[in-house]
């Protein structure tokens, strides 16, 4: 069944394929850990895709492009922050509205960007390391954002687990009333988390328009934000499991296309369903038998906080 598919190349491809959803998922994970459910990931990603593209084309620098993408995503998420943290609006509906708005706005901003090739993002030069069989392909032949996405996971994990800031963030997500009583600024912390989530989603979006596809067209993220949301749930709000989930999903997507290319006899329609079905299956296996493992959602998730006094 795996005849003709080089595992090294496959792993290298899946790492690249997963970058956009991984960035967005890690960002959303932090948002949800703070007790906020932002369903606007798709909208923030596509805003990042267009602002990143514009910045990179204007400045000629991919690095500035990614910064612009992150900024674009963060600015859009600020709208969500105002709605839910200041105006106490319903988070689910606000997030969905954010997606609608982001899709529309990105398309308006992107008019006139057709047929432009953005500046190339070079791979990190590892020199001879990249020529090592298998390991070189898997580990030393990527652009900087691939490494950054893994670092982001590690960073979020470290901050959430070992720092005071992480502790406070989790406290706010578990019980905003208790956190408030302890004197933490619940809303300020949540706004910061939302901005971080927006920036990460924007970064993921910019990766699509600058590296994965290198062009701008309307709707270019094509639903990646929704997958990112699912990955956060898949991960049970644990950073390393988000990495696992993104790689699993990206890996099966890449694998099914490779199987098609290698002339597998498995019918195409089943192959194209497989990323979704296998993700469900793996989650079922992971969440069953572990008692309450699946219920590890932050307790205040989706609830707005208003200090009585």
């Amino acid at each position, binding site marked *: 069944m795996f005849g003709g598919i080089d595992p090294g190349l*496959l792993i290298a491809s899946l790492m690249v394929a997963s970058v956009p959803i991984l960035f967005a998922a890690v960002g959303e994970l932090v948002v949800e850990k703070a007790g906020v459910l932002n369903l606007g990931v798709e909208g923030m990603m596509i805003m990042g895709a267009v602002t990143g593209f514009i910045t990179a084309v204007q400045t000629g620098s991919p690095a500035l492009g990614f910064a612009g993408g992150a900024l674009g995503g963060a600015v859009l998420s600020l709208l969500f922050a105002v709605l839910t943290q200041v105006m106490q609006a319903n988070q689910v509906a606000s997030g969905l509205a954010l997606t609608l708005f982001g899709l529309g706005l990105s398309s308006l901003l992107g008019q006139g960007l057709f047929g432009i090739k953005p500046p190339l993002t070079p791979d990190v030069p590892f020199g001879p390391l990249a020529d090592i069989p298998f390991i070189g392909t898997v580990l030393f032949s990527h652009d900087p954002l691939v490494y950054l996405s893994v670092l982001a996971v590690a960073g979020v994990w470290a901050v959430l687990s070992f720092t005071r800031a992480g502790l406070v963030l989790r406290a706010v997500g578990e019980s905003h009333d208790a956190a408030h009583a302890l004197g933490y600024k619940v809303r300020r912390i949540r706004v910061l988390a939302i901005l971080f989530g927006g920036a990460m989603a924007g970064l993921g979006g910019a990766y699509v328009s600058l590296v*994965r596809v290198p062009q701008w067209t309307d709707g*270019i993220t094509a639903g990646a934000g929704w997958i990112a949301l699912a990955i956060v749930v898949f991960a049970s709000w644990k950073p390393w499991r988000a990495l696992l989930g993104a790689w699993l999903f990206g890996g099966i997507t*890449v694998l099914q*296309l*490779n199987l098609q*290319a290698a002339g597998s006899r498995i*019918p195409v*329609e089943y192959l*194209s369903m497989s990323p979704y079905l296998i993700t469900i299956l793996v989650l079922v296996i992971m969440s069953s038998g572990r008692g309450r493992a699946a219920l590890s959602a932050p307790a205040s998730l989706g609830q707005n906080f208003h200090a009585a006094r």
Partner: protein
Amino acid sequence: MKRRHLLATAALGLGLAFGGAAAAQDKTKACFVYVGPIGDLGWSYQHHQGLLAVQEAYGDKVETAYQESVPEGADAERVLTQMALSGCDIIFTTSFGYMDATNAVAKKFPNVKFEHATGFKREAPNVSIYNARFYEGRAIQGHIAGKMTKTNKIGYIGSFPIPEVIMGINAYYLHAKKVNPAVELTVVWAMTWFDPAKEADAAKAMIEQGVDVIASHTDSTAPLAEAAKTGGKVIGFGQASDMAEYKPSPRVTSIIDNWAPYYVKRVGQVMDGTWESIDSWEGIASGEVELGEITDAVPADVKAEAEAMRDAIAAGTYHPFTGPINKQDGSVWLAEGATAPDGDLLGMGFYVEGITGDIPK
């Protein structure tokens, strides 16, 4: 108030009443319905270029209107009705899925002309259908692919298994095989109309399998961008638009959907009153299928052959589906010297002999 009431009782049954209103205008109004955003840089974008050409050709004498991202089905029917009501004289519906809606609305508005792209139904005298023979361009791409592949593996990224796509795959394969009997075709189905990232992955998967010429039936530049990363080892083609930014390689030529000649002609016919319901399926000859510049990455002799084939197709002396051609199962489709009837092509649901793998069902 009275008029509104009258119209309401007449409902949509009396389309004649509105046709009169439309004809009273001095400008001819041409309307277009697109299935995607015009920023898709592919299918809808190219149709919109046709609208711009109409505007350019007739200037003040014509008024144009369009609606983007219209879902097929109920929404299409409403948009078409609104357009007919608001005085459009001719409406181009530019996606296969608008077929039933176009015919249904056309029956209610006999004085408005309807033009449906890529379908087969003409249930009212004011409906025309039109399409482009993209397979002619695919044949030329196949020729180039067969000549230029070094690994003898060529690829094709399909969207959904519909006749239009299958026709393209067959034309591509047949002409590659003709000049290179050792060639093998790999087809990857994306099972989506639009997901650029997935197209990139599909192209990458094929490249990893040793494919070095990639044609795609999806409209983004993602496959070309993947090909570009190989540093000239893999080539591809522009699809729908020229994708000139990837010249001279990996993009060695392209198929450009050029609807402008047809749109300009048909709107002109509405203006001078000579419009008739037709079934139009034009190709390279009339300019609807345009072959983008063949770059110097293609050896001169191959380029000359490709251009000769293009000219023969344009002159009508060569049909890309000329027998003998067998179906995948070995049964005879076209006998020696026979050319494919249009009906067989439009409903094509089989691979030709030599292609491995099954069409998804």
